[in-house]
Every structure is written in structure tokens, then in C-alpha cells.
């Protein structure tokens, strides 16, 4: 076993010890198909929780999205996201002529990962929310659904995690959390962007009832 694999197992163990990280599948099965999981976002812990709730074989092919400027800023952060999670890095800023950065479509790294056959976990709210319901979704999910009609879009509800690690705290409190994976949402032919995003958001919120 390599170092990152061992570190990954240790991390998953800790996540399970602290939160239970129970995965419930309602409407989809834990199969190794290419998927985009989209979830509500309340805590830095969200990704680790989804990752720990997935079965081993799915963990290996499911990748998170990480902001390049933050997650490559120190060797440790870079190592964790690159070696353990195999994260897809995105730039948060568009063209910055002063720094000599080319104008890159922020979705391009995601598209490339999907072309390689990887599964992704995205948080379409774009930022961590504190309200009971997730904020309205950003359009990236729609663009990905258009470009990759064959990839399943799985709504995912993460329950309780805001209690484990509220914003500004660093040590997680042991509280049981669940991750509910729902039935795939597909883009209907000719469906409008806003209508689709609202429907996707409703599918995530609907899972709260079964959580």
C-alpha cells in the first residue's frame, strides 16, 4: 500500500469514527458508472463525508473539485488534494492579464475529467450556505449536463454536517451524519437552464425527507 492510500484509509476511518458517514441509496445503486454527484454545501467537511460514504471502488474513480489558488498554496494542501483525493483543480478567476494568466473556461478541467471517464462531486451552490435550504444553483451543472448527456446526475443530500464543524471551527464534533444519494436527474430535451437548475435543486431538497 502506498502512502496516499494509507492516508486515505486513515482519513476515511476518522470520518466514520466522527460522523458515522452513513451512505443511503434511494433511487440509485452504488455502481461504478460515470456520474456527477451534486450536493448541498454547508461545511468544509462535505466532500470528505461523501467520499467516506462511498464504497471503496467508487472512491477511486470519484473526484472532487478544488480551487487551485487555495489548495495548492502549501505543500500539504497540495499533497492531500492531489495524492489522496485526485482533485480536479479549477481557477477561481478568469483572465488576469497582469499575472499573465490566459482566459480559461472554469469548466474546462471538469470537462476534461469527464472525458477521461471520471466521476465528479460538485456543489452547485458555489459556496457554503448557512440557511436551512441550499441557495439557488449556479449554471455549471447545466453546462455539464448539456455537454455530457450520458453521465448520470445524482442528487445528494448531506444531513447534519453543519453541526459537526460550523464555520470558523477546526475540530469536528462527533455527531452522526448521513449522505443520501437519490434517483438520477436528466436534462429534458429543450429544457431551459433556470428550470433545470431549479428542478435539480428541488431533487436535492426532496432527499431531506428520506434522510
Amino acid at each position: 500500500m502506498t502512502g496516499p492510500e494509507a492516508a486515505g484509509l486513515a482519513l476515511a476511518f476518522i470520518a466514520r469514527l466522527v460522523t458515522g458517514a452513513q451512505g443511503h441509496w434511494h433511487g440509485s445503486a452504488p455502481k461504478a458508472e460515470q456520474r456527477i454527484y451534486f450536493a448541498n454545501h454547508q461545511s468544509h467537511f462535505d466532500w470528505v463525508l461523501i467520499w467516506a460514504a462511498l464504497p471503496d471502488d467508487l472512491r477511486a474513480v470519484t473526484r472532487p473539485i478544488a480551487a487551485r489558488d487555495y489548495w495548492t498554496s502549501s505543500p500539504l494542501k497540495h499533497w492531500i488534494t492531489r495524492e489522496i483525493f485526485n482533485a480536479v483543480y479549477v481557477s477561481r478567476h478568469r483572465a488576469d492579464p497582469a499575472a499573465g494568466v490566459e482566459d480559461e473556461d472554469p469548466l474546462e478541467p471538469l470537462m476534461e475529467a469527464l472525458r477521461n471517464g471520471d466521476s465528479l462531486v460538485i456543489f452547485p451552490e458555489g459556496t457554503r450556505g448557512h440557511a436551512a435550504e441550499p441557495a439557488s444553483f449556479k449554471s455549471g451543472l447545466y453546462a455539464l449536463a448539456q455537454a455530457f448527456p450520458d453521465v448520470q446526475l445524482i442528487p445528494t443530500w448531506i444531513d447534519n454536517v453543519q453541526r459537526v464543524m460550523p464555520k470558523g471551527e477546526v475540530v469536528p464534533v462527533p455527531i452522526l451524519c448521513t449522505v443520501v444519494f437519490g434517483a438520477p436527474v436528466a436534462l429534458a430535451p429543450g429544457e431551459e437552464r433556470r428550470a433545470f437548475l431549479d428542478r435539480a435543486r428541488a431533487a436535492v431538497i426532496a432527499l431531506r425527507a428520506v434522510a
Partner: protein
Amino acid sequence: MGDLRSLTVSQQVGLLFVVLFGLLGAATVAAFVRTIRDSSPERRGMQKRLARELRALWVGLVMFWIAWASGPVVSTVLFGFVSFFALREFVTLTHTRRADHRSLLLAFFAILPMQYVLVATRQFNAFTVFIPVYVFFALPVISALANDPFRFLERTAKIQWGITVCVYGMSHAPALLLLDLPAYQGRGAFLVLFLVLAVVAAQIGQEVASRRLRRRPVARAISRSFSWRAFGAGAIAAGIVGVLLFWATPFKPLPALAMAAVAGAAGTLGEFVMKALKRDAGVRNWLGNSSVTGAVGLLDRVAPLCFAAPVFFHSVRWYFGI
């Protein structure tokens, strides 16, 4: 009985484990044979429940066996983890707020380990007062410093209560293990087993009695099965187990009966209180099939022990005047 008394301590305890594993094995085989023989739908649900109970018993018994076989340190750590998981389940079901974060961290990562260290080092006086005195004082201070007055008493009280049941109560089980009684060194494991068997016997006795007797429940809104008659039957069942096991305890037959009955009664009353708590939290069963939290139902199983252990522990200390 004289022959049994003449065995060495570890022979006695070993014999008891052999008997228990044998009984449980026989019960499992019997249950398995019955699943093959008849399988009407309504029976199947009952068999599933029975299978789950049997599995829990296996886990529990193996845990006690490990605790006995591997000595006080390992068993203290083992009980510490049970405490941790029970408290995790308890906290999940109470509505804590962001301001409680620090108090909860303190509970899980400072108070819980500290209490078990006190047990492991046999500082029984400090162990008895640490949570009721010092933690009772420190927790509300930490909570108040978080600057959130919303439902302050309720939140703080719930955390206190969770610690008292899951940590303080539970820690008395390994404490029994380490208690040095006159002419009874090294048999603490047996006392723990005695306590557990008394509690289990009381629960089974009460369950059977409430099914057979069909008395009017005392508090229908909380439990449909709890009646004074059934409760008495449970305590008597515990007492009988106590007498049957007296040969390996430091007690004479009558005190053994009384001790077991007290422990059993405390356990069933504790379970009754837990039922009220669950009703309040809006769950029928800590585990449930699609519970909010994915709670594993550990608290359900250990709560009676958490209530019975301190009562039993202090009865034993009082009885021997130590």
C-alpha cells in the same frame, strides 16, 4: 455449590463464559432451525427481530469476554469507546447549536478520556466527583462564553445529561472491574458480568411479564408495556439470577439477591426514562430502519446498564464499607 467455590477465580469465570456461550449458541441454533421450519410472513418479521437481538447479544458477550481475557486496561478502553459511540448518538438526537461546539468538544475529547483515566488509575474518589462537581461547573461556563443565550438552560442541561448517562454512568462498569474488595481480588470481571446478567434478566422478565399479564400501563404516553406488576417481575427475575450466581460473588445468597434486584430495577427504570427521552426527541427506536441520523441503536442497548451501573457500584461500596 461448594465445589464451585473451591475452583480458582479464572476457572469460575471461565466456566461461566462457557455456560453463557453454550446457552447463546443453543439459542442461535434453535432460532435458525425455526427459520427453516416455518416462514409465514408475520413470523418472519419476528424472526428478523430475534436474529438482530441475538446478534447484539453475541457482540456484547464477545466484548465482555475480550474485556475479561485482556485485563483492566483494554477493557477500560473498550468501555470508553462504547461511551463515545453512545454519547455520539445522544448528541445527534439533541438539538445543539453552533455555540455549543466548544462544550461538545470538551465533552468528547477531554471529559470522556479524563473520566476513563480516573477509572483506570483507580482514583475512585476523584472519579465519583469529577463529573457531578467539576464538569457540572465547567460546562456551563464554556457554553456561556460562546455568547448565545438562546435556550441556554435547555442546551446546557441536555449536554450535561448526555455526559451523565453516557460517560458517568457507563464508566461505573469498568470501575467495578477494578474495585478491590476484601478477599475478592481479581474477580471484578465477574461483578460486571453479574451486573449485566441481572440487568438483562430484569429486562427479559419485564418483557415476558408485560406480554403475559397485559396490565394497564402506568404511563401510556411514554410506554405501553411498562406496568408496576411487570416491573416487579423483572426485579424478581434479576433477584433469582443473583441467587443462582451467588457462589462466585463476594455476597451471601440474600445480599446477592438484593443486589441483583436493585441493579435490575435500576436498569428497567433507566430504560423507561430513556423511552420518555426518545418520545421527546421524536424517535420510537434509537436505531429505526430509516432513522434521521443513521444511529446504530447502541444507546438503546447500553442505556439500562448506564443507569444500573452507578447504583450497583455504590451499593457494593456501601455494603463493604469501602
